[in-house]
């Protein structure tokens, strides 16, 4: 078995250009099977282009990619038989009922009638739409349509499920429901999920890749990324204005940057262990009226901001 067959998705030097504009600049990516993988990046980073290439909506300008071991440009086997896809703005035939739509999708995959009925019932139950099967899709709410979109993407029990910004257009409750649904899929299939909402990715993904200006900036588990890229921040809140902290901390060699906002200071440190040892003592000695002292846990957002800001200027061109 080759590496391409073992990985759920593998891209080598994948490129896409529109005229002279290169939107994907040689993407090398390996997505482990059965993982929930987040593709991160600001708008225009190349996330949707990557999704479109991997689901055969568009053809690459260069490079190659394999999905479930099948080359995306393969002539003998159609990768679409083995994947599920939900676009950023899922579109449906609004004159159909939810059941008619799922039934139609199942027929496209060639499912036999008995299996198809059973699969439709299972999916309506999984996405929490039981009872809405006979309602016209035109009368579905936004959240219901998103869940129906996930159901149609799961019809063929895909090996790889592609979800393009699946929660970005939903309200907080809808987002929570969809993320919980994605968490349920963990271990059943590989979920390849693009988003610019970092908290959501942090919540459900095992691994992430950060894309910017069509290039891969980093790929690792969320934990590894946080440990490697996020710098620790200590938050200090006083009863009075926090300006005296600038003078107090400016000579400490482990302090890289201090940001003051009213009675609160965010202290970016280079050596967390040393800071934890010396900073509390320093604050006590100063006699400043302390309200809160907190070592902030690094978030994926910290990592993302740092990666995107550190990207070399030549890479942006």
């Amino acid at each position, binding site marked *: 078995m080759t590496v391409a067959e073992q990985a759920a998705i593998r891209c080598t030097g994948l490129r896409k250009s529109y005229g002279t504009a290169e939107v994907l600049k040689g993407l090398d990516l390996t997505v482990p099977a059965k993982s929930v993988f987040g593709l991160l990046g600001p708008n225009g980073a190349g996330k949707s282009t990557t999704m479109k290439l991997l689901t055969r*909506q568009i053809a690459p300008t260069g490079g190659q990619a394999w999905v479930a071991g099948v080359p995306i440009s393969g002539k003998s086997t*159609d990768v679409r038989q083995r*994947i599920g896809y939900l*676009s950023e703005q*899922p*579109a449906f035939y609004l004159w159909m009922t939810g059941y008619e739509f799922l039934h139609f999708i199942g027929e496209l995959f060639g499912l036999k009638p008995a299996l198809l009925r059973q699969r439709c019932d299972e999916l309506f139950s999984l996405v929490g739409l039981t009872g809405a099967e006979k309602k016209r899709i035109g009368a579905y709410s936004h959240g219901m349509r998103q869940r129906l979109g996930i159901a149609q993407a799961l019809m063929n029990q895909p090996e790889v499920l592609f979800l393009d910004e699946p929660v970005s257009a939903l309200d907080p409750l809808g987002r929570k429901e969809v993320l919980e649904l994605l968490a349920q899929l963990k271990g059943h299939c590989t979920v390849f999920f693009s988003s610019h909402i970092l908290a959501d990715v942090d919540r459900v993904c095992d691994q992430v890749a950060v894309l910017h200006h069509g290039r891969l900036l980093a790929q690792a588990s969320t934990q590894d990324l946080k440990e490697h890229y996020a710098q620790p921040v200590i938050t200090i809140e006083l009863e009075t204005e926090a300006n005296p902290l600038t003078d107090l901390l400016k000579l400490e060699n482990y302090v890289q940057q201090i940001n003051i906002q009213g009675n609160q200071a965010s202290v970016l440190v280079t050596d967390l262990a040393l800071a934890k040892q010396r900073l509390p003592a320093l604050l006590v000695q100063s006699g400043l009226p302390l309200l809160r002292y907190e070592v902030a846990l690094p978030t994926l957002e910290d990592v993302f901001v740092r990666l995107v800001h550190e990207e070399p200027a030549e890479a942006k061109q």
Partner: protein
Amino acid sequence: MIMNFSPFWPMLKKELYEQYRTYRAFIAIVILLLLGVSAPIVTKLTPDLLQSLGNGITIVLPAQTANDALASYLKNMTQLPGLMLILLAMGCVAEERSRGTTITVLTKPVSRSVFVLAKFFAYAAVLLVSTALSAAAAYFYTTQLFSALPVTAFLLLNLALFIFFLLALAITILASVLLRNAVAAGGLAFAGFLALSILPGLNATTAQALPSILFGSERLPLLLAGTITPGEILWPLGAGLGLVVVLLLLTCLIFQYQEL
């Protein structure tokens, strides 16, 4: 590109169901049926209508015949149904692309050719039923009000009409693939339909290759009299069908290389 035709039947079923649910099939059947019924009736009533509108002036018209009713039927059927077809089908691909349903369907194992062909055959099926009903009505009323028309000639003329509709349909679907906006696609299809209607009058060679030549003043009397040669019938019908196939192949090829 893989040409897997197994999703063709579910796609065709969906297209037919869509035509039923969105009243497209109903509109096509009613319009064509009305045209079929009205041609012989209006032909029969025309002398009386003109007489009543003449304000005392005596208008003498030759007695209307079954051939006049047939000419009226053919004239009706080569004008309004083409425009109706353009309005019904101009968004069949363009609208799906702008709404995004093409992405939903074409990320499943459905080839783009199947996507286009299912649409063509669904509209063709509705046109076949509509044309058959219209022809049956026209034949019935013509026989009742005038005299019986020669059956073979009448069937051949309706076959030619059906192929003429298929040409208009193929042009409309091609326009709908070429342009993302349904209205613009309708405009382009209308220009194509005009060319289809006008070109035979401008160029004799082009006229030979289109089924509409059978409706013209030269061949229609020969066809009705049964003195036309088989070649004069088969060539325009065969060439018309060939043109439909060429247009469909071109449409599939263009759609194959388009981004969704």
